[in-house]
């Protein structure tokens, strides 16, 4: 299809996406809820979000749809779309093909979001089968008014309490490689650990000493736009601060912290766009799936600015096996 050239995703009008869906391909879509609800039924999954990185750079649109085409291979089973509740979510990767990948969309602030974030590292087949996706959101003006959702294009059902997954098989000579571009590196400040898994924390160990985390952030004058960064054997994984409540002595996070993992607050990134270009792997052009974080969009003021050829929705959380924050996640289908 000519609109795609060498890439699998782009930001299109409602009409263009409707035509694609009616042609019968498989797609992962991102759009404002009002647009998703009007798309024709077909082989697609969709999540609500009106923030994108497209050909015109960073863009907010309540009319357009970011659509990512799922490449089909001759002789390989067609993708399967399944919705999961909190109760069935741990079985998600059991349903995934033995050789392929799965795209997951999770509504922000839902129970399934919380359960996925906290428990996914323990799911059966986790890290054995490729899993990526994003957390759906809303326009920031609507945050108190409507809930983030997912839409099953096959059934026409919309949910704010289910995760939606498209399981995709690949031929034996192809492999799905998932990776991150994270501009944040651990700073040289204190080493932080947390006593338990959670999105909200009161206590924190600072260099081994138990402190009230909210008071610590206040006393140290920490810039909470910078995420906590953990080093997972060379993969830098961010957890972003949502809000600090000094009165309640509590800190809310956009992803859970885990015990036994050491965190540091990130070093500051001066020029996001420039740093982003430099951080991209050499030779990386087209990708088969990608998403970036709404916080990068906001804090680095990306509206109208380009971040290379890699485009996609700007989301409320990125999933590369597990939930990460303030990170570009992408997948390439490579030859074996």
């Amino acid at each position: 299809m000519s609109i795609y050239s060498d890439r699998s995703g782009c930001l299109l009008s409602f009409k263009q996406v409707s035509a694609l869906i009616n042609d019968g391909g498989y797609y992962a879509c991102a759009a404002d809820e009002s647009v998703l609800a009007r798309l024709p039924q077909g082989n697609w999954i969709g999540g609500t979000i009106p923030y994108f990185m497209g050909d015109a750079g960073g863009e907010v649109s309540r009319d357009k749809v970011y659509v990512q085409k799922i490449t089909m291979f001759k002789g390989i089973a067609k993708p399967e779309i399944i919705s999961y509740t909190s109760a069935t979510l741990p079985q998600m990767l059991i349903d995934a093909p033995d050789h392929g990948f799965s795209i997951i969309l999770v509504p922000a602030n839902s129970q399934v979001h919380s359960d996925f974030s906290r428990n996914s590292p323990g799911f059966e087949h986790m890290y054995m089968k490729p899993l990526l996706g994003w957390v759906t959101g809303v326009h920031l003006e609507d945050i108190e008014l409507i809930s983030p959702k997912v839409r099953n294009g096959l059934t026409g059902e919309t949910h704010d309490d289910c995760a939606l997954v498209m399981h995709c098989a690949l031929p034996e000579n192809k492999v799905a490689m998932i990776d991150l571009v994270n501009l944040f590196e651990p700073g040289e400040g204190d080493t932080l650990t947390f006593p338990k898994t959670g999105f909200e924390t009161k206590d924190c160990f600072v260099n081994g000493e138990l402190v009230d985390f909210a008071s610590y952030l206040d006393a140290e004058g920490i810039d909470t736009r910078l995420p906590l960064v953990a080093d997972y054997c060379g993969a830098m994984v961010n957890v972003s601060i949502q809000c600090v409540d000094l009165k309640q002595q509590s800190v809310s996070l956009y992803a859970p912290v885990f015990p036994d993992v050491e965190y540091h607050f990130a070093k500051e990134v001066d020029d996001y766009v420039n740093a982003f270009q430099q951080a991209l792997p050499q030779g990386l052009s087209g990708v088969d799936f990608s998403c970036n974080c709404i916080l990068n969009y906001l804090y680095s003021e990306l509206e109208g600015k380009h971040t290379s050829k890699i485009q996609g929705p700007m989301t409320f959380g990125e999933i590369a096996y597990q939930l990460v924050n303030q990170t570009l996640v992408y997948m390439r289908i490579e030859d074996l």
Partner: protein
Amino acid sequence: MKTSELLLRLLKLEEPWVAKGVKVDYSHKRLHVWLVNTEVISQEDDLDYNSQTCDSCAENSNFQWDDQDVSWFHLGLGDYGTKVHTTIRIYAKPCNEENCVVKKLYLGKTDLEVTDMLAFQVVELLSKGAAYSSVCNLFNIPLQTVWAIRQQFDSGNLNIDVQNQTEIMGAIDGVTQAKTDDLRPLLPGVNHDAWLKLLAKDNGFKTRSLSLKFLLTKIRNQINNVQDEGSRKIKIGELRHYFDKHQRALSKEIAQLDDWVRQA
């Protein structure tokens, strides 16, 4: 040999355990075996305290205890799953003395529905890539039980304390080996130090695989929380299974392992 003795031998339960009763549930394909530990319980069902009781349990023997009937899923026999039933004595303070006869009454954990022997087989099979559903079918146990075993194991709360561990591991190896032999390159065995080196920090290992980075971090953290050798081997088995499954995409990583093997 009496039939009941043969049955217990097949279930890898030997003296002082004896079978007091057996019932076959044909509709659910389950064998129920009522057990008594004659080292501890007399034929009159009285707990027989003697010098083999640890000081703590001896002190508690006159108070702060309760007898409780327990049932654990146990090793399978052919198409049939088994469930063993016995009575344990629960104290206000749990007994951790390995040689105490009271502790020996516990064939499994009180908060899990399976014997330690079965728990060991379950985690071993899962770590070698068996699907949850296959494990459920193999032992005729519910999915939530398998899930609970896995959760306890991953959190370091399931120390595998099984006397005939080697024999069981050997049997499972035989089953899984046949499945994967034709694909497997010469990955080092789970006993090779190369895996421990891979799990050590600052080992110079390089990979671009995000999933491997995450898995190494997870297993490194988990292995720090487990105390027994059996559990460590199972964790290494899980890592080895990852390499086995993704060997075509991990040629550079496997070459680094090979270097360590050659240097050893």
